[in-house]
Each structure stands twice: as C-alpha cells, then as structure tokens.
C-alpha cells in the first residue's frame, strides 16, 4: 500500500514538473472559456455518473464524497 502511494505521488510530481514553457497570464484567454474547463455542468455530471453507476461496475475517478444509491 505504502509503495503504491509513493509511486502515485512520484507520478503526480513528475507530471506537474513537466518541462514546458510556462504559459503567461496574458496568454490564458482561451483557457478561460467554459468549454475548456475540465469539469462541466455539475447537474449534468451528476446525472451522467448516476446513470453509469447503475449500469456498469466502474465508477468515480474525478471526485470523492458523492452519496451512494441502492441502484448498484
């Protein structure tokens, strides 16, 4: 378990330190668009996740703390 945790931390640290040219604040206009956000409409996301949770074994991935249901 501890080994997996350390490996996960090392992976995340490696990704966050990717040697890319830093994007300057004045270059972030496109990134501010709604369609560039990594998470979409909260109600839509909840509906989608609830539907898939009721039909498939895999669930979650982007957040923690959601309530369960008797559908699965």
């Amino acid at each position: 378990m501890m080994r997996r945790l350390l490996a996960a931390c090392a992976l995340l640290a490696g990704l966050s330190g990717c040697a890319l040219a830093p994007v300057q604040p004045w270059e972030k206009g496109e990134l501010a668009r709604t369609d560039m956000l990594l998470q979409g409409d909260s109600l839509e996301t909840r509906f989608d996740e609830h539907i898939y949770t009721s039909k498939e074994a895999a669930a979650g991935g982007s957040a923690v703390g959601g309530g369960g249901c008797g559908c699965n």
Partner: protein
Amino acid sequence: MENKSQNGVPAGQALLAAALLLPGIGTVHAETPPERGSVGVKYLYYKEDQPGLDRVRVHAPAVSVLAPIAGEWSVAASATVDDVSGASPRYHTAISGASHMDDLRKAGDVTVTRYLPRGTVSVSAAYSTEHDYVSRALSLQGTMSSEDKNTTWNFGLGGSDDSINPVNRIVQDAGRQTVSVLAGVTRVLTPVDVGQFTLTHTQGHGYYSDPYKLVDNRPDSRRQDTALLQWNHRFIALGATSRLSYRFYRDSYGINAHTLGAEWVQGLGDGWSVTPAMRLYTQRAADFYFDPVYDGRLGEPFPPGYVFGSTQASSADQRLSGFGAVTLGVKLAKQLNHDWAMDLKIERYEQRGAWRLFGTGSPGLAPMRAVSLQLGVTRQW
C-alpha cells in the same frame, strides 16, 4: 475572436459563468470566488430496455444553487428527485412478473468553499434516501496552485455511510462504509491545452450484495482504484474545442475497466453551440460472476455445483459481467443573454457482451439499451 467564448460573450464572463457552475473540486480555473450567484434547473428523462422488454424509466428534476459570500466564500447546493419505475433482472437478464418496482429517490448535497490566494478548501455533505436505502457522505477537498498558476494540485478525502433495509427482509439495517482519497494535478500545458491527471482509491466494507437478486453473495469488502486523464484542446481557427478523457479502473472483485470519452464543442455563432460526444467503455467480469450455465440438478438460477448455505461469492448480475458499451450523444446549447442559458442533451447507450475489448465478453446476455434526455436552464444574478 481570441477573447470571446463560443457564445460570443467575453472570456472573462465565460470564466465567471463556468466558475459559478462548478462547486466541485479539481479545476484549474475555479479558484477565484464567484462574483455572481446562479441557479440551474435540469430535467432528466431516462428509459432502459432489452429486446422485447421495457426495463426502467426515470423522471428526475434537479436544481442547483451557488451563492458567493463576502468575496472569499461560496455555498453550493443541489437537490434532485428520481422517480424510478420498471423492472430489474433477478439474475442475468431474467425478469420475474413480481419484480416490478416503483421508487422515489431524494438526494441533496451542500458544499462550502473558502477561497485563498493560491488555493481552495471545500467541505461537502451529501444525503440521499430511498424506500429501502439511505446514504450519507462527507468530504474535504483542497486545491493548491503554483505561483504562476500553471499547476494546481488537487486533494480530497471522503467517507460514506450507507444503510439498506430491503423489503424482502433478507437483511435488516445492513451497513456499508467507504473511505476515499484523491490526489491529482492540473497543468496548463500551452495557451490552448490544459490537462489533468487524477488518482483515487476507495476502501469499503459492509453489505455489497444485491438483496433482490437470486444467488447474489458478494465479498463484504471492496477496494477500488481509478486513474483519470483529461485533456482539453482549443482549435482557435475552427472555433471548436476537443475534450478527451481516459479512465482506468480496477477493483478487488477482479474487474478491470477502460473508459474513453470524446467531445467536440463547436461554436455556431449567435450564442449557439453543438457538442457531439462519444463514450467507449469495456470491463472484465468479476471473479465471482458466473455465466448463464446452470446446475443440472437445481436448474436456474443456480451455478453448477451450487451448495445451499455456502459463503462462496457468486453473482449473476449483468453489471458484473464482461461487456463493452457505446454511448453516442449530442448537446445543443444556447446563451440567451447575459443572464440566461439553455441546453438540451440526447444520448443513446448500448452494452453487449460481444463488445468487450481486450478479451472475451460474457456470453448469453441480452443487449441492454438506454436513451436519455436532459433539458437545462441556468440563470445568473
């Protein structure tokens, strides 16, 4: 055009609108407190069927509210009511005449977020209730950005406490508890690329079996791991954005699953956008799932060699079989004016054993199909 969203509103307003709709965690953009409040209403219609059989219908209205407080706080809340009716399989794809169900699920959640100069801290609580099931969940989430705001670390810790009281009284006050941890990183890669990588681990114990399915006896603990990779890219010349995601999932049931998602957000001008989307999913069967081959002496639904009273794990739940699934959908959105927006999404889903990738799917199961429709309205103030 560079500073305009696909709806023709200034990018700053687009950012604000997006932040208002995102009470959750994990976005590189949602670290400034919202300046305007918002309320969203969404209605879901969902219908599921198998050949010759209507299975489940769901009508679900939902509402969400987000209110900024004192410039450094926000409160987000949502509530939904799922009206579910239909029939669920008792084993594999078999339906009994007595299996008709009609249930009302009520769910709500609230999130309080504190905005800091280089991060956020959020506390969330969720509650849902059905006639035979109650779920409570709490979580703590945080984000922390680098000085140049190009890298954001995401952390989360959550727990849930569920209880089930099935009407057939197979168990009473059976509980299930889970603890989940999340760690992720969001990275601005270029002026038109942003990516996110998130790992989650969930450890649970308690009652995992389905009390309404025959011969269903699942392990009383479950470990689940996910790795999620997301990448958004802006095509300025085309006025479009691609949104790609891949999730790997595995659990202690022996299930491995891959999920690939792709969306193309195409601006059409005058506040309109259209988003075709596709999702591919494949999963390996649980170690204790058994194919629809039954014991020669006991018959259906007992697996070969079944012993009454045995504690050996077994399940004929189609959701634990090996299969693949495809979702195709399209979303149409319209920014009506500075305050109002509407959207409509239609999706079609189908899963089949033969569509499993990286291996052979489970045999003998009827395809499952579903259609869903979501209609939403958002108002900011």
